[in-house]
């Protein structure tokens, strides 16, 4: 008698069916399993893209410790932990336009360590290694991070523009244009006969920050990229031609006169309502006078063909005010000629009878901020 018992039980069949289904499912998933990347390497490109956007299109986060909201680029070395996020752009409205001060500060490796860059620009839990470099046209490249780069890294490149500072020059042509020495000839006070002359430069914050750059308005979108911002930028004003005679009738101190810069004082108003200016304390605001491009504090003598400059470094003026004006008052003495005999003159450098010389967006007076080209590369691995 043959044994016709089934060798396979019902539950074996059920189990085998489930196995086959799972087996087929895994077998069809297999082509997608290994695409040749592991977990960390997948997101190198994404992290590089994110870092490049944070650096090139974001102005950075103000530090929150100081109630005055110090901009991160003016945060002193001791307070660098207050910086929440780096960002090199001037503002959100002008992506890819970088600020020169922020670039200098970001690439300063004596202040910021690798860990700072990771927590403030790259973010993420994994300690990525990085190399961020920036090359401006005509200058040497700057970089932070590691030198040695492996074969496989995430890479992105951004073409950017860097905004530079404006500068202004006051020379003999300004006498004619502004009639700086014009005064009422019927008056008995003839300023030409006074030995001390005050020349005032006005930096009008409200106008510089809020006026239209062109008249009529062409395209106000990118205004921020071309503004002269006295709170954050370097202001550079040079005065020359002390001994020149302009072609107009009035004469300046002739070449045989001795001109001396007595003192320079700073004062400001914080609103536009016509309050009297308050003086800025000389102990805090100092070392901004340059004689022939060498820093020297007055009083000193101005020789023939000398230049006098005031250079206010970025962050020099109190950053919290955005209205009112800053006045720079020069006091010139022209008492004698080189032989020691008294003379009178110096009408050129005299604004006591006219308005102060104003820093504006007029391109013939002031060299406006220009944008230069640069390229930034971010490599992450």
């Amino acid at each position, binding site marked *: 008698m043959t044994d016709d018992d089934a060798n396979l039980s019902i539950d074996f069949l059920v189990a085998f069916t489930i196995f086959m289904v799972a087996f087929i499912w895994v077998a069809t998933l297999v082509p997608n399993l290994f695409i040749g990347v592991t977990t960390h390497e997948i997101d190198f490109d*994404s992290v590089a893209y994110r870092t490049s956007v944070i650096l090139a299109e974001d102005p950075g986060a103000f530090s929150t410790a100081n109630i005055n909201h110090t901009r991160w680029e003016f945060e002193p070395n001791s307070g660098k932990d207050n910086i929440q996020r780096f960002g090199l752009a001037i503002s959100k409205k002008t992506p890819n336009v970088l600020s020169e001060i922020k670039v200098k500060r970001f690439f300063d490796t004596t202040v910021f360590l690798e860990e700072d860059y990771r927590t403030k620009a790259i973010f993420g839990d994994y300690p990525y290694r990085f190399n961020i470099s920036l090359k401006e046209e005509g200058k040497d490249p700057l970089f932070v991070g590691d030198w040695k780069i492996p074969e496989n890294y995430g890479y992105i490149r951004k073409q950017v523009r860097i905004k530079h500072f404006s500068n202004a020059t006051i020379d003999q042509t300004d006498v004619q244009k502004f009639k700086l020495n014009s005064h009422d000839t019927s008056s008995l006070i003839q300023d030409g006969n006074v030995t001390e002359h005050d020349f005032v430069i006005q930096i009008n914050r409200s106008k510089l920050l809020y006026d239209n750059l062109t008249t009529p308005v062409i395209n106000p979108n990118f205004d921020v990229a071309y503004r002269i911002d006295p709170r954050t930028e370097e202001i550079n004003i040079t005065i020359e031609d002390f001994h020149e005679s302009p072609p107009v009738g009035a004469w300046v101190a002739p070449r045989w006169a001795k001109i001396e810069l007595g003192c320079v004082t700073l004062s400001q108003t914080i609103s536009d309502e016509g309050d009297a200016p308050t003086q800025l304390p000389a102990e805090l605001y100092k070392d901004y006078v340059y004689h022939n491009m060498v820093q020297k504090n007055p009083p000193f003598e101005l020789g023939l063909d000398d230049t006098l400059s005031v250079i206010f470094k970025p962050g020099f003026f109190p950053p919290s005010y955005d209205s009112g004006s800053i006045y720079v008052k020069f006091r010139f003495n022209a008492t004698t000629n080189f032989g020691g005999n008294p003379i009178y003159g110096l009408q050129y450098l005299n604004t006591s009878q006219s308005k102060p010389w104003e820093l504006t967006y007029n391109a013939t007076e002031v060299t406006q901020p220009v944008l230069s080209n640069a390229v930034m590369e971010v490599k992450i691995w």
Partner: protein
Amino acid sequence: MARLSDETAQWIVLMGFIVSFSLFFLAVMLNQSTVVGQTTAEAVSEFPKEDIRGVRNVVIESMFLDQEGNFNNRSHVQKEIENISLARQNAVVYFSDPVFDANGTYSYYFIHYNNGVSAYNETWTFP
């Protein structure tokens, strides 16, 4: 037929079953992880960040053109913007003339952009 101790054999099947399931689970994890990098790049390309910025800038620039002549003027340029945006960027752009506030010092511009996937609305104030 002799009764077998079914349960012992079923343990073997059960163990094999568990091992297969755990292999399947690991395979699913690996499969999902490789998609991460790919979809991030897709998301970046998909969101029309530069398109929106470009349209917004050119619309604002067009608001300051002169409304002179009967053919080439502000309205015509703005019509061109709307048509080119629809034809080349597959986006509907709508914007209106500025609305002034009570004193006439501030003006408000409304800009709408919609490319079927992302929509963008802005009220731009000048000055």
